[in-house]
């Protein structure tokens, strides 16, 4: 019984992705599988995955970090400046620094000052966007041609794989990762096990910020430069990738990395497939909404089928709103 449930839950994201591939494969008469298009799919989902690799740390604690959209823009802007000043070499350190700082700030707010992460990161989202508006206004900062190679498949794929491996290692094979998920289950249990929860939280937020910043670099290199509308609504895209992959909203032990890595292409494929089907404008968005619901619903149904319980409430947020009182 129990074993079975694990299996179903494990393969669910793959089922959804596979189903989607089949549907679009038929609908577009195989156009989806054209080499160029597969490459597009990869290019388009790369940034989402990278940012997700960070966000999952916060999500597994049951926290929320929706700064990604704006943070990406800020990091991109600064790293582009650095790129112009010191060449390609300057970009990554700058971006990472920016990401880390933002993450540190958020983490301290959440861990030390007990500001609910949703509240804090929402404010940051607004503030950082305003900041980048002020910083760039209509200005565009081009990235040096020398850095363009980053956008090449031959660099991006290995880079992505390395990142996944590193993050996967930290997330799954270190005490730190275990504590994260444990915090998602019951923060007190970890406190009473004599573990410095605050430190872990802060680090998690920092990693989240850093990954968002790195995603920022991959984005501007793709865009050719940074401008102030960069990364609009990016955070929601990343979240959808996690949700459609079946990562529990309230975090905890059910948070698995592969779910994100499968979820991101699923969302992208959905947009890509619809366009290939010749559906434009609002249609894609509407369908995206329905499929998101359908996917999560299916996961839930399967889950409750084998477990009897399905969380009808959004764990993290409802909890945090209660904490607000």
């Amino acid at each position, binding site marked *: 019984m129990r074993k079975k449930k694990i299996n179903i839950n494990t393969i669910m994201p793959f089922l959804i992705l596979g189903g989607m591939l089949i549907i679009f494969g038929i609908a577009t008469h195989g156009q989806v599988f054209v080499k160029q298009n597969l490459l597009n799919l990869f290019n388009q989902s790369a940034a989402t995955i990278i940012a997700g690799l960070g966000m999952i740390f916060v999500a597994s604690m049951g926290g929320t970090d929706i700064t990604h959209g704006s943070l990406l823009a800020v990091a991109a802007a600064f790293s582009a400046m650095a790129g112009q000043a010191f060449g390609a070499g300057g970009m990554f350190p700058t971006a990472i620094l920016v990401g880390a700082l933002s993450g540190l700030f958020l983490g301290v707010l959440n861990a030390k000052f007990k*500001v*609910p992460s949703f*509240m804090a990161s*929402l404010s940051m989202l607004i503030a950082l966007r305003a900041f980048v508006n002020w910083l760039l206004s209509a200005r565009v900062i081009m990235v040096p041609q020398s850095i363009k190679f980053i956008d090449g498949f031959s660099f991006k794929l290995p880079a992505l794989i390395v990142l996944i491996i590193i993050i996967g290692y930290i997330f799954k094979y270190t005490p730190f990762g275990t504590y994260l998920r444990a915090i998602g289950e019951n923060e007190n249990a970890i406190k009473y096990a004599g573990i410095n929860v605050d430190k872990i939280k802060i680090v998690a937020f920092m990693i989240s910020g850093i990954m968002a910043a790195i995603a920022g670099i991959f984005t501007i290199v793709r865009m050719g430069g940074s401008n102030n509308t960069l990364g609009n609504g990016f955070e929601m895209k990343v979240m959808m990738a996690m949700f459609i992959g079946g990562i529990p909203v309230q975090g905890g032990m059910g948070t698995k990395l592969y779910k994100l890595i499968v979820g991101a292409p699923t969302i992208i494929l959905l947009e890509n497939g619809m366009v290939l089907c010749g559906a434009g404008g*609002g249609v894609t*968005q509407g369908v995206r909404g329905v499929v998101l619901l359908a996917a999560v619903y299916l996961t839930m149904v399967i889950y409750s089928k084998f477990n009897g319980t399905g969380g*009808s*409430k959004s764990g993290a947020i409802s*909890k945090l709103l209660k904490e607000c009182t």
Partner: protein
Amino acid sequence: MGVKMRKLKKQMILLGCIGAIFVISNMAVDGRLLTWNNMKIIITHAIFPSFVSWGMMFIFTSGLIDLSIGANILLSANIGAICAMDLGMGYFGLIGMTLISAVILEQLSVNCSVNLKIPSWISGLGMALIFEAILTFYSTIRSKTEGSSNITLVNYREMGSMPYMAIIWIIGFAAAYIIFNRSTLGLNIRAIGGNEGVAKAMGINMKKTMLSGAVVGALFIGMAAIIQESYAGKLASTSGLGSLSTIFKSLATVLLAQSFERVVSMPVGIIFSAVFVTSLFNVLTLIGVPSGTGQEMCLGAIVILCGIISHWRYKGVVK
């Protein structure tokens, strides 16, 4: 009794702080803040967020975090306007249809969560995408045929103009307060939010309560939509979850109110927060802080600040 005194003291402090802030900033803008005319403007701007926040209050408290509210407002407002103008249904169309569609849309998204066990804010996101898509269809067509992307409410705009707005506001507050603090529904919603187990055991019908809570919330949201439509004459459609930005201010308001719930009860807190947030923007404008950049940064800072203050020396788990 001691508890009551402590609470009273807290309330006094809060009021004092707000008052002080107002006086100080009034000096900062050499007296242009606390003029009758300016206060009128601030109130005018505070009314929309207040209603949205009251709506959120009834939905969020029972644990349903619905992010489709923004899209809901845009869509139902446009539907109402169409009924009022194009279909010539006048005020009935504006008020009736907006409220009805607001309720229906809200029920859709809440049902997804309550009945289909989809975590509420995923269902919220999904529904937001769908609502926006519908509105996008409409405005794409309209911009072809009508020479304008979204319908403009030309007549029937009294509800967006001052005396009426304030009256509606006061009525809305009374309703929100009574329902939230003094009605079985409100108490049950709060019970569910506070401790599901107890609520169940005490024979409270969870599903029914949550859904009817959503209905009440939707009515407030609908009112908000009407007011904003009448006030601005036009609510433009968005895509890509742009609708979220419509409720950022209100979200901030609700979070603020929530942080001070230990001092004043939510409905009152919302009024304070709404006025506070709107006057913040007003003051910044008076000082000459540029909009689109400086002002939003300040908003972010202020919300965080309030978050810190309200959770000062707070024990317990915060996600």
